């Protein structure tokens, strides 16, 4: 019935002219000053997302992710290019489109800060004009899956980050949107909470065929949820393809950061891990996911050196992007 491609973006551009603020100048002078520089936040991006896909949209800080989402949701008007979402032009048909999309910002909430969670959800029922029957059905379902009951009556400002995130997810899906935009949904959450959210998203995608565009820093989110990912850097789309290809190439390296009791005389050398960085008694040891488990490495390490503390670092998008550049953009089969 509708376009098979839910989201169609072509030649999307967004430039900002940022006025340079002279240090010490007052507000009036700033308004009148003409020195400015042009920032290309989004530079000629094109892609299509068919119905029901879960796609990752990743990039380093300031790459243009949020700007893209703003243009897809109608908040921001592009400088040039075309966008069609569900066959609507976002910034021209903002209100119409709003009924069909759900958005969750990791850093900000769309719930009312001073009201109990349940009241926020009730208000949203009116905002989205959800038929009472459907509202009750959805709410019941979400209460069950997301386990909202313990804090349904708690004011949103008193909720923990994980609870608030679950509340936001329920809020975003109550009106059965066709598309769900997620901006850093698992930021700041512990491993258990992250897993719960990922399960929920997979369920929703399966049951309701919701298209999900996931903007995140966290490669493990992408690994668990998406088959396809797009990498954006400095406003440009540098990769649009399978997640597995990226993982195989760049996502396998994990880093063990260990604090030893005292500084060893020479670089640490393990059977399947090599030291890539040293700072006194603190050592960074890299190993491949497919070659060894963290447990094996830790065991070997502590049998040879006195270990005081350690953490494990997962591959981060910044690192991957850096490596992509080092290898050369053409080395990627897009």
């Amino acid at each position: 019935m509708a376009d098979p491609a839910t989201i169609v973006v072509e030649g999307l551009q967004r430039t900002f002219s940022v006025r340079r603020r002279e240090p010490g100048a007052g507000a009036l002078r700033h308004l009148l000053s003409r020195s400015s520089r042009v920032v290309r936040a989004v530079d000629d991006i094109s892609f299509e997302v068919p119905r029901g896909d879960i796609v990752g949209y990743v990039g380093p800080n300031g790459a243009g992710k949020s700007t893209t989402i703003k243009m897809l949701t109608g908040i921001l008007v592009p400088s040039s290019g075309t966008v069609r979402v569900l066959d609507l032009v976002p910034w021209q048909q903002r209100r119409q489109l709003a009924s069909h999309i759900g958005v969750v910002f990791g850093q900000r909430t769309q719930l009312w800060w001073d009201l109990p969670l349940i009241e926020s959800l009730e208000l949203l029922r009116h905002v989205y004009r959800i038929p009472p029957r459907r509202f009750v059905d959805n709410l019941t379902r979400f209460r069950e899956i997301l386990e909202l009951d313990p804090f349904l009556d708690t004011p949103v400002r008193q909720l923990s980050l994980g609870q608030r995130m679950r509340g936001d997810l329920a809020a975003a899906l109550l009106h059965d949107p066709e598309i769900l935009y997620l901006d850093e949904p698992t930021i700041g959450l512990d491993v258990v909470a992250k897993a719960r959210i990922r399960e929920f998203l997979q369920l929703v995608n399966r049951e309701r065929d919701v298209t999900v565009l996931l903007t995140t820093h966290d490669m493990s989110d992408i690994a668990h949820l998406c088959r396809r990912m797009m990498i954006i850097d400095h406003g440009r789309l540098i990769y649009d393809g399978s997640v597995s290809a990226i993982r195989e190439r760049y996502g396998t390296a994990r880093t063990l950061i260990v604090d030893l009791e005292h500084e060893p005389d020479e670089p640490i050398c393990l059977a399947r891990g090599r030291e890539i960085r040293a700072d006194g008694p603190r050592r960074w040891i890299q190993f491949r996911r497919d070659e060894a488990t963290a447990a094996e490495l830790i065991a070997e390490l502590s049998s040879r050196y006195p270990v005081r503390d350690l953490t494990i670092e997962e591959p981060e998008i910044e690192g991957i992007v850096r490596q992509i550049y080092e290898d050369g953009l053409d080395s990627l089969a897009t």
Partner: protein
Amino acid sequence: MTAILLQDIRLYLTLVESRVRSQAQYRGSFLLVTFVTFLGMATELVAVIFLLDTFGDIAGWGVGEIALLYGLAGIAFGLAEMVGAGFDMFPEMIRRGELDQLLLRPAGVFTQVMAADFQLRRFSRIGQALVALILALRWTSIAWTPEKMLYLPLAILSGAIMFLAVFVLGATLCFWTVESVEVINTLTNGGSEMTGYPMSIYHDLMQRFFTFVIPLLFVSYIPALYLLDRPERADWPGWIVLMPPVAAACLVGVSYILWGVGVRHYRSTGS
């Protein structure tokens, strides 16, 4: 078009009802603050009465007449403060990036901002101005006609809409300047005090500004002239008496349009 308007109105009422309910929760503290503010503001009225006790009249307006002006202006301003509280906190909203959230919803931004707050506690100002109005009705001898009885609430409503429009203008400015524009505060609070006296006493430039730019002349002065059948300004055309709602409509229309320009600007430059 009208369907959308009705939708927005219904949404506004629902959101405001939630605001009011959450405010009424803290009943004890709320009543105390409202009552104390009522008393406090009443001292303003007492001060005016003292002044008139000494001077007898101001530009030919006695204590009853001044009380009428004070009452009309006070109720109008209080109503605007109550309803327009959302626009008052708009600078804060935009600073916290909450405007984006509103743009993601299938509802008008204007409606949502207006519904963001509704301050019941402003009733203290309305209450105290009502006292002034009642005193005015006792201390003056108005020749009441059915038209005048209809005119009174209409004039107050128009005044309230005018002050509300000034609040909207104040919020609209936030789209362009990050610094909070206190000029609007001056216009509203100052304007409210200003309209408590006959406009004829002020400097020519001020009178012209507040007739043609921000038409606060029509909040209390024109209605009082009509209700009291005052002989001054007999040279002004008769239809000026009907201007309050027109002035209110014009000002609110202008502010609504400028608001739209502001939202468009926000969406084109990304704040």
